[in-house]
C-alpha cells in the first residue's frame, strides 16, 4: 500500500472491511456472471469491471444517499457499490421480472430510483448531459446534493463530453465527473484515439479543476473523491477526477483481445486493487486471514443466494411487454 492515505479518512477496521468486502463482492459477482454467461443464463453484452473495482468502491465512499449517480454500461460495480440489492441486480442479469429493470435492461441498464442510480447508459458519453441536467435541477432548487458521473476515457472523444464539460462549468453545476481511464475504448487505445492523451487537459480547458489518481488503489481513490466532492459541495462548480485503471478481462465476453499484449495485462494484474488492499490490511494487522476468509465465505453465500433468487424468479409475462413505455396517466391529475 502506498502512503497516499490521507488523514482525512479514518481507516478503521470497519471501513477497511467494507472497502475490501465490496471489492470482493463485485469481483465474485462478476466471476459468477462470466460463468453464468457461459451457461447461457446471462445473454446480451456482458462488460466486466474486474480489475477496476477500486474506482467505484472508492468514489462511492464520498457520496451520500441524496447524491445522484450516473454510470456506463460497465456498471455492475457501481450498482453494487451504490448499495443496490444484489438479488435484483442478478435477476436483471437473467432478465427476470424481479430484476431492477424488470428484465428490460439487462447487464448494461441497471437502474434504481431509491438509490438515485440513473444507470446503466450504453451510449458512450450519453450519460454526461444527463448528469449536467440532474445537477442543474439541484442547483435551481438550491438542494445541497451533487451528481457523480462515471464514464470511460473513450467518452472524451464524444461531442457530448465536451458539451457537458462546457455546460457544467458555464453554469457552475454540482457535478463530479469521474473518468475511469482504462486505456482502451473497446479495442482502441488512448493514444490511437486522442490527440491529447492527458484527459484532465480536456476538463481543464473548460476551467474545470481536474486531477488524476491511481485507480488501482481504493484508498487513494476514496481520498481523491472526497476532496473533489467537497470542492463541489463547497460551490466551486464541477470537478473532474481521472482514475487510472485497467480492465483485466476482455471488453465484453466475445473479444479475443487482439489489441493488447498478454504481458501488459499480466503486468497490470500485479496491481490488482483487491490483492494490494488485502495485502496491506494483513500487513497492518487490520484484519486477519481468517476474518478475510469469513468475508469470502459470506460473499460466496450472498452471490449464490442471488443466483438462486434469479433462477427461481418468474419471467415478465409477455402480455406486459409494452408496460413502462409511457407512464400510466391518472386522468384526474390532468385537469
Amino acid at each position, binding site marked *: 500500500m502506498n502512503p497516499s492515505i490521507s488523514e482525512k479518512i479514518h481507516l478503521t477496521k470497519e471501513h477497511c472491511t467494507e472497502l475490501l468486502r465490496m471489492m470482493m463482492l463485485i469481483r465474485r459477482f462478476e466471476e459468477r456472471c462470466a460463468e453464468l454467461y457461459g451457461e447461457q443464463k446471462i445473454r446480451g453484452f456482458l462488460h466486466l469491471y474486474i480489475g477496476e473495482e477500486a474506482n467505484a468502491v472508492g468514489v462511492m465512499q464520498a457520496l451520500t444517499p441524496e447524491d*445522484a449517480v450516473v454510470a456506463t454500461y460497465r456498471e455492475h460495480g457501481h450498482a453494487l457499490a451504490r448499495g443496490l440489492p444484489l438479488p435484483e441486480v442478478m435477476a436483471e442479469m437473467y432478465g427476470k421480472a424481479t*430484476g*431492477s*429493470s*424488470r*428484465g*428490460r*435492461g439487462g447487464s448494461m*441498464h441497471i*437502474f*434504481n*430510483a431509491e438509490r438515485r442510480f*440513473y*444507470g*446503466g*447508459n450504453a*451510449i458512450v458519453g*450519453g450519460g*454526461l*448531459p*444527463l*448528469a*449536467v*441536467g*440532474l*445537477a*442543474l*435541477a*439541484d442547483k*435551481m*432548487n438550491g438542494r445541497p446534493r451533487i*451528481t457523480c458521473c462515471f464514464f470511460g476515457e473513450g467518452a472524451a472523444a464524444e*461531442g*457530448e463530453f465536451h*458539451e*457537458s464539460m*462546457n*455546460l457544467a462549468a*458555464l453554469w457552475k453545476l454540482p457535478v463530479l465527473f469521474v473518468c475511469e481511464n482504462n486505456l482502451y475504448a473497446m479495442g482502441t487505445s488512448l493514444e490511437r484515439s486522442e490527440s491529447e492523451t492527458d484527459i484532465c487537459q480536456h476538463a481543464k480547458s473548460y476551467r474545470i479543476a481536474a486531477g488524476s489518481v491511481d485507480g488501482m488503489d481504493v484508498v487513494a481513490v476514496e481520498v481523491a473523491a472526497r476532496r473533489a466532492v467537497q470542492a463541489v459541495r463547497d460551490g466551486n462548480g464541477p470537478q473532474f477526477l481521472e482514475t487510472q485503471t485497467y480492465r483485466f478481462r476482455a471488453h465484453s465476453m466475445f473479444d479475443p483481445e487482439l489489441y493488447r499484449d498478454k504481458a501488459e495485462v499480466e503486468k497490470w494484474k500485479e496491481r490488482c486493487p483487491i490483492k494490494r488492499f488485502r495485502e496491506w490490511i494483513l500487513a497492518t494487522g487490520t484484519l486477519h486471514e481468517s476474518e478475510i476468509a469469513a468475508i469470502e465465505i459470506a460473499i460466496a453465500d450472498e452471490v449464490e443466494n442471488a443466483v438462486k433468487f434469479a433462477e427461481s424468479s418468474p419471467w415478465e409475462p409477455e402480455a406486459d411487454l*409494452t*408496460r*413502462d*413505455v*409511457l*407512464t400510466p*396517466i391518472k386522468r384526474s*391529475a*390532468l385537469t
Partner: protein
Amino acid sequence: MSVLRKVTYRDAVREAIQDAMHRDASVFLMGEDVGRYGGAYGCSKGLLAEFGEDRIRDTPLAEAGFTGAGIGAALGGMRPIVEIMTVNFSLLALDQIVNTAAAIRHMSGGQFSVPLVIRMATGAGRQLAAQHSHSLENWYAHVPGIKVVAPATLADARGMLWTALQDPDPVVMFEHAMLYNDEGEIAAEGDLSMPIEGAAIRRPGTDCSIITYGGSLKKALAAAAELAGENFNCEVIDLRALRPLDGKTILASVEKTHRAVIVDEGWRTGSLAAEISALIMEGAFFALDAPVARVCSAEVPIPYARHLEISATPQVAGIITAVRGVLRR
C-alpha cells in the same frame, strides 16, 4: 359565449410559455438564444426580463448537451421546456431524445419518467434551404416512449404546451415555421389548455378525407374550400398528435368518405403519410373506393430558390389534383 381576442401563433406560443412559468415554478425554458435574443422565432421575447436568466436560460450551441441536460433536469424534478431552433438542428440531439428520453422509462423497468417538453420549428417556406427547412416529424413519431404533437391552430399553440408539461413523459412539439405570423382569434380567458392526443376534424365532409397536420393544414383547408366549388365535399382532419396517431378518427372518416388523401410535408419515402396509408389499408381496406393518395415533399433536400422550394413541397394545387384523382374526376 367567451370573449375572443386577436393573437398571432407566435403570441400564442409565448403566452403558453409565460402562463406555464407563472403556474409552475419548476417550469423553465432552455435553448439557443431564448433569452436576450428573444428566441430565434421571437417566441420568448420579453420573457427574460420577466423571469430572469435562471428560468429563461440561454444555452451554448450544444443541442445534445442542453437537450440531455433538460432530460436530467426533468429526472431531477423540473419541468423543462427545451427549445431547439429547428428540426434539422435537433438531429444533434437525437441521441439524447431517442436513446435516453424515450428509452429510460422502459429500460429502467418503469422507475424513471422524463416530464420534458422539447419544442422546435419545422418545415419549409422561407427559402432557408436544405439545413433549415425539413420536416422530420416522422423520425420522432417513429419512436415509442415519446409523444409527438404538431399544433396547427392558434388554440392548440396556446393550449397544448400546458397539457404537455403535465404529461409525465417526454413530449416533442413541432411548430411549423410558416405558422408563426398567422393571426386569428382565441378565447380571451378561461381554461385554454388543449389535449395532446386525438385528431380534430377541421372541416366535415363526405366525399374524401384529407388527412394532414401542422403547416399543411391551411393548405388542405384551402384546397377543400376550392373543391367545394366543384361540389366535392372534403373532410379535413388535423392529426394534432403524430404519436400516438388517432387511428379511430382517421378510420371513421375513411369509412364514411371511402377516399383519403394524406398531405405531409415530410418526404414520401418512409413518411408519416406512408404510416397513415398503411393504417387505412389495415383498418379500412374494404371501405376504399380509390387507392390512398399522398401529397408529400419531393425526394430532394429542400432547395433555396423560391420556385424550387414551392415545387418541392405540398401546395394547394397539388392537393386539389390528388383529391380529384381519388374521386376519379
